[in-house]
């Protein structure tokens, strides 16, 4: 029994002896737990520790994925914008009137003949 209890006079001398015997008996009751219970307790402990490890791994992965997304999003956005500009320039070339191109070819051919 702890000295603290004695100091605070929570337990009389007579009860102290009883409490001491009871704690000793409880200690023995833990020492005499059957093998099956001990095995189940050990399994529960391993499960608690491993489940926590898995959850931590998932959390770390989620944080890493978020960071990658946050960092790469502006780069993707910038790249997308550049592609759009390039595409619009191509489209601008295609927007030239084909009739005008044919006229230019015809004029060029006439010029060469002369």
């Amino acid at each position: 029994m702890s000295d603290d209890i004695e100091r605070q006079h929570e337990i009389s001398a007579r009860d102290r002896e009883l409490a001491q015997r009871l704690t000793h008996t409880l200690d023995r009751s833990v020492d005499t737990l059957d093998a099956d219970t001990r095995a189940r307790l050990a399994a529960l402990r391993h499960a608690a520790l491993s489940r926590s490890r898995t959850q931590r791994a998932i959390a770390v992965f989620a944080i890493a994925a978020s960071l990658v997304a946050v960092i790469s999003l502006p780069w993707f956005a910038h790249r997308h914008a550049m592609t759009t500009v390039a595409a619009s320039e191509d489209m601008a070339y295609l927007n030239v009137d084909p009739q005008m191109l044919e006229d230019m070819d015809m004029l060029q051919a006439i010029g060469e003949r002369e």
Partner: protein
Amino acid sequence: MATADGRFYTPCISAHAIRMTATITSLTLDAFLAAAEGRAYRMALVATRRSADALDIVQDAMLQLVQHYRARPHSEWPLLFQRILQRRITDWHRQQTQQRRWFWQAPIADDEMDDDPIAQIEDSRDGNPVALLERAGDIETVLEVLAQLPLRQQQAFMLRVWEGLDVADTASAMQCGEGSVKTHLFRALHTLRAALLAE
């Protein structure tokens, strides 16, 4: 510690507490739980009387300690574990009381109830002390008598006497005042003595 009859009793609880404090800094969480799980199971089993429920409670307590308090200093683990364990045991009792109420059964004996068990117990302090200590040494008898205690008395006895926590830590684990801890402990010892003498 020497007793009146000259025999020596090992002061298990304080030695256990000192051992825990002295070596706790070098323990891993796995080793801490391995050392605490047997006592926690016994405590939960006395409170619930059902092995499956006791195992569930211990598992929950382990899981919560690992998930939320792994990073805390090792010296805080014993108290944190007891706090979680006692809360789970109290929750279990509340659920049982609710279920019993739902099915119109008599509620489980509780210290907060009006009937004071002390008033109902005859003061038998003058009983045979040798027989009393003999019964207190029998595991089955002790577990049965402890299981009959109201929950709060059980918790006060287990934490204060068996685990060797001080009044403040016991009050913190039981989520009550320090005065209540002393009252519950006094009642617990009184009831235990009477019950063991009546066995």
